[in-house]
């Protein structure tokens, strides 16, 4: 992007919404958003790595503050899982929920980073565009939602058997009468499609909208000193509101993950 280009609100926003895309092969679908990948992997390592480090030295005695904090998160997730999932949650569901919660929470939290300063800093190193919030990338949210969806189908088949799962597709919820098979299947199809869609789009929509509102508020800085001050106040207000959205969306995403996987374990 040329520096002489006139900076309009549209170019400012669209610039900040541009991914650091790296074509692999012929481009199009074969493209990778390097920024989303780098940020998500980095945050995954930070979040899960920190818990891992604390967990490795966890003692059964009096915990230090770091361990107590980790245990707080641990207990929170464990409690949510136990309320929904009836089985041994420690084998898979609870750790998976912890992963989802921490990871999504951290990825959401990048929305608080001052976008212009960080992108300028990253730009100084090289890349022209860099999106900080991976969960505002629909690829990330769909990757998570579809992974959960696959897990859901995997556990359905594992618990009920392939025959049981197919039987459930055709014989629930209305009944096993052959006349109802088509309706049952259509109903279940809608459910199967809507689950990952709502799962992914809810998170994406919230974070994307949050990002755009931040960008719109930062535009105030273009109107002068008073506007900058107003933008700061409004930005602070939105950040405080966003402080609710960030953990709430992470929580919702985790809860839906638990619910979907739990539902897969239960036969109707």
């Amino acid at each position, binding site marked *: 992007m040329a520096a002489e280009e006139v900076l309009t609100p549209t170019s400012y926003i669209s610039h900040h919404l541009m991914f650091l895309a790296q074509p692999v092969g012929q481009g199009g679908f074969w493209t990778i*958003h390097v920024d989303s*990948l780098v940020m998500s992997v980095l945050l995954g390592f930070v979040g899960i790595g920190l818990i891992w480090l604390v967990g490795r030295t966890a003692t059964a005695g009096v915990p230090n503050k770091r361990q107590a904090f980790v245990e707080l998160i641990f207990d929170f997730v464990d409690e949510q899982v136990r309320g929904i999932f009836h089985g041994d949650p420690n084998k898979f569901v609870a750790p998976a929920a912890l992963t989802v919660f921490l990871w999504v929470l951290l990825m959401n939290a990048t929305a608080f980073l001052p976008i212009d300063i960080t992108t300028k800093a990253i730009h100084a190193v090289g890349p022209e565009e860099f999106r900080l919030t991976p969960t505002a990338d629909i*690829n990330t949210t769909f990757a*998570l939602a579809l*992974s959960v969806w696959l897990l859901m189908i995997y556990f359905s088949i594992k618990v009920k058997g392939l025959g049981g799962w197919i039987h459930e597709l055709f014989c629930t919820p209305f009944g096993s009468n052959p006349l109802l098979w088509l309706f049952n299947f259509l109903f279940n199809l809608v459910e199967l499609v809507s689950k990952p869609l709502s799962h992914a789009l809810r998170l994406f929509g919230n974070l994307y909208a949050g990002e755009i509102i931040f960008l719109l508020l930062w535009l105030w800085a273009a109107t002068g000193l008073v506007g900058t001050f107003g933008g700061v106040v409004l930005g602070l207000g939105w950040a405080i509101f966003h402080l609710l959205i960030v953990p709430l969306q992470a929580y919702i995403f985790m809860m839906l993950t638990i619910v979907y996987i739990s539902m897969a374990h239960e036969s109707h």
Partner: protein
Amino acid sequence: MNINLTLFAQGITFFAFIWFTVKFVWPPILAAIEERRTTIANGLAAADKGARSLEEAQVKITAILEDARGQARSILDQAQTRANGLVDEARTGATQERERILQSAQAEIDQQINRARDELRGQVAAITVAGAEKILAREIDPRAHQDLLDKLAAQI
């Protein structure tokens, strides 16, 4: 808003993170928490046990105290009885001793009286003889009149 290969990359990353959490992150924390839970449960159980044994000890202490009190009372009673017995014994002993002393004194007195009487008898006989000698102014053979004199002495 274009779906691309990032989807798969993120999906694989996600599964890797889940695997890591299931394998390495969750178990040690769970183990520590479970262990602490057992420790706390054990501690609570021990506290319960302690409280119960304290109660039992209290009951035992009360019983022992009651017992000791009873023993003390019986010892006191015994001592009282014994003291009374001793006093009674001493009293009877003293009474008997007095009787005995009185009797022996009486016997002594009687003996003395008898001895004095015997002596007096002898002297009276002698005085009588001497008086008769003087009155009669003649010798009287004491041996010839011994039986007469003895009779006189016995009458005194």
